[in-house]
């Protein structure tokens, strides 16, 4: 678990360098990536459905990104990008393709469908957090902010 947290922190941080994120935000991006992955990983080792785990992971990432964006007055995308990457179902998409290539279409299509579901749950995690964000803006006395 500690290794998972550490590698996801470093992995996300390195990803930010590829996307040219300013030096001052690198550490925070690493934290966002780590928290998202830890939520996902903790849920997946407790045998929770990967779709739910991804949903909650993406939701965590988006909420923290929004908070950070407000705090530091920087665009939200800076933080969310780093956190979303680990959750992208690359492994499953790869598995699906491996079965396609070896002519095992039945397994391949079911894997591809699952990968698609996981991508959908990432989208929904982001959407839920956006809804919460707008709700808090409407109900609370937040100043209009362009994050």
């Amino acid at each position: 678990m500690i290794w998972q947290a550490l590698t996801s922190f470093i992995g996300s941080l390195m990803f930010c360098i590829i996307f040219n994120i300013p030096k001052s935000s690198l550490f925070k991006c690493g934290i966002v990536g780590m928290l998202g992955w830890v939520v996902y990983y903790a849920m997946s080792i407790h045998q929770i459905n990967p779709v739910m785990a991804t949903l909650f992971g993406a939701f965590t990432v988006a909420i923290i990104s929004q908070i950070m964006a407000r705090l530091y007055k920087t665009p939200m995308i800076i933080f969310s990008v780093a956190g979303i990457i680990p959750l992208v179902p690359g492994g499953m998409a790869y598995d699906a393709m491996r079965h396609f290539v070896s002519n095992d279409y039945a397994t391949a299509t079911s894997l591809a469908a699952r990968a698609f579901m996981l991508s959908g749950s990432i989208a929904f995690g982001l959407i839920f957090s956006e809804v919460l964000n707008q709700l808090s803006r409407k109900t609370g006395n937040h100043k209009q902010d362009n994050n």
Partner: protein
Amino acid sequence: MGLSTQESLKLMDVCLLAGEMLLRSGAETHRVEDTMTRMAAAYTDAATHSFVTPTGIVFSIDKVDSTKLVRILDRSTNLHRVVLINQLSREMSKGSYTIDQAYEELQKIKQSNQGYPLAIKIAAAAISSGCFLIMYNGVWNDFLPALIAGGIGYSAFSWFHFLVKIKFFAECLAALVIGIIALIFVKAGWGQSLDTIIIGSVMPLVPGVLITNAIRDLIAGHLVAGLSKGIEAFLTAFAIGTGIAFVLAWTYGGMS
């Protein structure tokens, strides 16, 4: 705040320059529209209209008999620039710049190069490949192969993209290179699991910014932009998949 026609045209240039840079640097479409509207609102009372898609920006200010269009051909990811322009637009909303000063400031941002050097990016891609391998339950023995495959893969991507300006082609070839290197490592006995090494090393090529942007644009109601970015992300994933599939077809011998 009535502006003369001359000033309005200048303001239009400022907004379009900011929008163009944002879009080129990988900002979401709704951010581009929002920033342009806010910038204009700092100087004029007239309503502004903007229509932004990933490949072009249309912008007009009411009561000015001119609408401008900017075509965007190449897009890359430079989020530092997005942050800088975002800050500038905040400053402009407070009224701390004249139109001319804002234009100069934008030119300065355009000319300065905030990106990390390529060598650092390659190192970052290499290290992140290794880390992703561990995250996807890989074994530590495979850490070094993934590190090397990821680093070479990303350098190959930059090199091919420099040679041929077709992004999908570069991604496909880079994925092919990663697959071959991973295969060599496994055949030579230095790596255990071909699958996890490939998955880890391919991660730096995954279109993360595009995916997040596409979703955020769709939520914000920018359907044209969201869909086209989604398709771009899908094409990228497809290109990576094709490159890897070549190697897999050879290893697993399915495509007889």
